[in-house]
């Protein structure tokens, strides 16, 4: 079954064409890595899928729902959640509160103000569970802004998955981490996205080949290859456009 499908997506900013006709379909449960040189349009692609921008033309389908042009919160309610390249958490709330906020909508609490948070056993339990999953349970009451960088990145992922979305987009989850942190982090991502459809933008080739079932290579707003890691590695077009130049570094 298709979890996410892009049909002939275009996006222009003014006269500049950023995305120039992308078709992509992702089966549910697949782990996709999107790679490509800087400025190729990877992050823009994520912004289109998550509703931050509306595409100039084309269709985006989440399962059997058309989502292009919808607001971010509508898309989130339909089961697509994303993380951000630049850490995007609630700095003045504690780790626990961050996660609790993230689970509230999916449990149906909406804009409720006739219930006390402390009495919402399901929300509290769920938030605790996610906190253990991302291994921040020892930092429960620490304000998010006082966490280390790696912990903030973990919290970012935690907030992203806590709403229970089936399709998860991670925008450079390991950016700025050391080698050993990255290794541990990939493990963590594997665990917490178990059974979900995962799309991730990534620069670290180790992460890409370790995590992804399939790789989509985006260059100048087009997908030039979309295949298994091995096939992508040996694809001459990819080597020329991307991997080739990367290896000369």
């Amino acid at each position: 079954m298709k979890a996410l499908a892009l049909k002939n997506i275009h996006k222009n900013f003014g006269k500049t064409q950023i995305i120039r006709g992308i078709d992509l379909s992702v089966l549910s449960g697949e782990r996709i890595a999107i790679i490509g040189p800087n400025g190729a349009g990877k992050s823009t692609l994520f912004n289109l899928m998550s509703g931050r921008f509306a595409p100039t033309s084309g269709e985006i389908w989440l399962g059997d729902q058309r989502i292009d042009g919808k607001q971010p919160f509508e898309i989130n309610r339909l089961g697509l959640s994303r993380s951000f390249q630049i850490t995007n958490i609630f700095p003045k709330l504690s780790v626990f509160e961050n996660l609790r906020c993230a689970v509230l909508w999916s449990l149906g609490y909406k804009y409720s103000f006739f219930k006390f948070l402390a009495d919402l056993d399901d929300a509290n339990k769920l938030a605790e569970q996610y906190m253990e999953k991302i291994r921040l349970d020892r930092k429960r009451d620490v304000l998010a802004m006082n966490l280390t960088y790696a912990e903030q990145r973990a919290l970012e992922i935690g907030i992203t998955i806590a709403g229970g979305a089936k399709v998860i987009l991670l925008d450079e989850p390991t950016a700025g981490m050391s080698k050993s942190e990255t290794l541990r982090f990939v493990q963590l991502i594997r665990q917490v996205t178990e059974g979900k459809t995962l799309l991730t933008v990534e620069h670290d080739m180790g992460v890409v080949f370790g995590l992804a079932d399939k790789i989509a290579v985006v260059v100048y707003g087009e997908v030039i290859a979309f295949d298994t890691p091995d096939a992508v590695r040996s694809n001459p077009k990819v080597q020329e456009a991307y991997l080739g130049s990367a290896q000369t570094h």
Partner: protein
Amino acid sequence: MIVCLSYNMLLGQGGMLSFGHAVYTGLGAYIAMHTLNAAANGVLPIPVALIPIVGGLGGMFFAFLFGYVTTRKSGTTFAMITLGISELVFAMSLMFSGFFGGEAGISGNRVIGKPFLGITFGPPIQVYYLTAFYTFICVALMYAFTRTPLGRILNAVRDNPERVEFIGYNTQHVRYISFVIAGFFAGTAGGIGALNFEIVTAEVVGAARSGAYLLFTFLGGATFFFGPIIGAILLVLAFVLLSEFTKAWLLYLGLVFLFMVMFAPGGISSLLMMNLRLAAFGRLRNIWVAYLGLAVTALIGLAGIATIVEMVYHLQLNAAMGPEVRFAGFGLQTNSSHSWFGCVFLVVTGFGLFELARRQYLRDWGESQEYIEKEIKRREEAL
């Protein structure tokens, strides 16, 4: 107090800097007054004790109306729109004298109907109890609000509205609903005010009043729930006591606000909390000498400044009454250079010593903070 708390619901909890909070208090007060008069004429069978709630519903209604426009945006845009609406309503209040009563305002009499259990709300003490009752209830309700899902999401909107959109919440809705709730409490406060003063004038919806709410909420401290309560107490003290003491009270107020914003943006409550933290780790006694030094030297300097200010004001306003000013028990001659030089001397020595005390204090403070950080680390590792 209720107003400041309801204002803080916007500013502290939701990060919405409103320049028009008096609109909802004021309109609530007008609605309450009209209802009171209608009840007095026997048109509406509403007991006096419930009039504040009517005011609250009035405030809520207008927040519902105007909030739809204002809460669509956040940050600076939000602030500007609230300022616009505040001016709009104030201008309207002078145009539609039927509802607003023009410059004279509208008045009423809170003693209506038969006394219930001997309570007529005639004597001020009975109104005082009613006010205390409402204040208590409203404070409790607003505190409860901070612990509800909506209250927490409002904090999240303050911290990072963009991220809230990506966890399934419409930030405009969150702001809007909170704005309406804050409007209710503001209106309730207005209703109480209407009962207390038995008169409502156009000034209650004015920008100056909105500004005062903003100022004192900030002074008290927007980051803690109880901050605005301190702010509200200061508001009353400043308006009632300080204005009795001196004509220059608005100047002093402005200066205090300026220093607060520059040096303690968390307000009085954050200063309190920081020192409580110090006390909790048993470091307060290491630093109290420095505090004493600060206080004494600051007092000397401030006394000098205050004397100069008083003399200048005297020259401006009461020069006809002769050159003598009585300030803090001293007779001062505005036409003698001795007085002026004395003041300048006070200011210079005061602030010179203050600077020395401040350096010592900063050293002590830094040491204590370091100690606390270490202590926290140690306790964490001990876990």
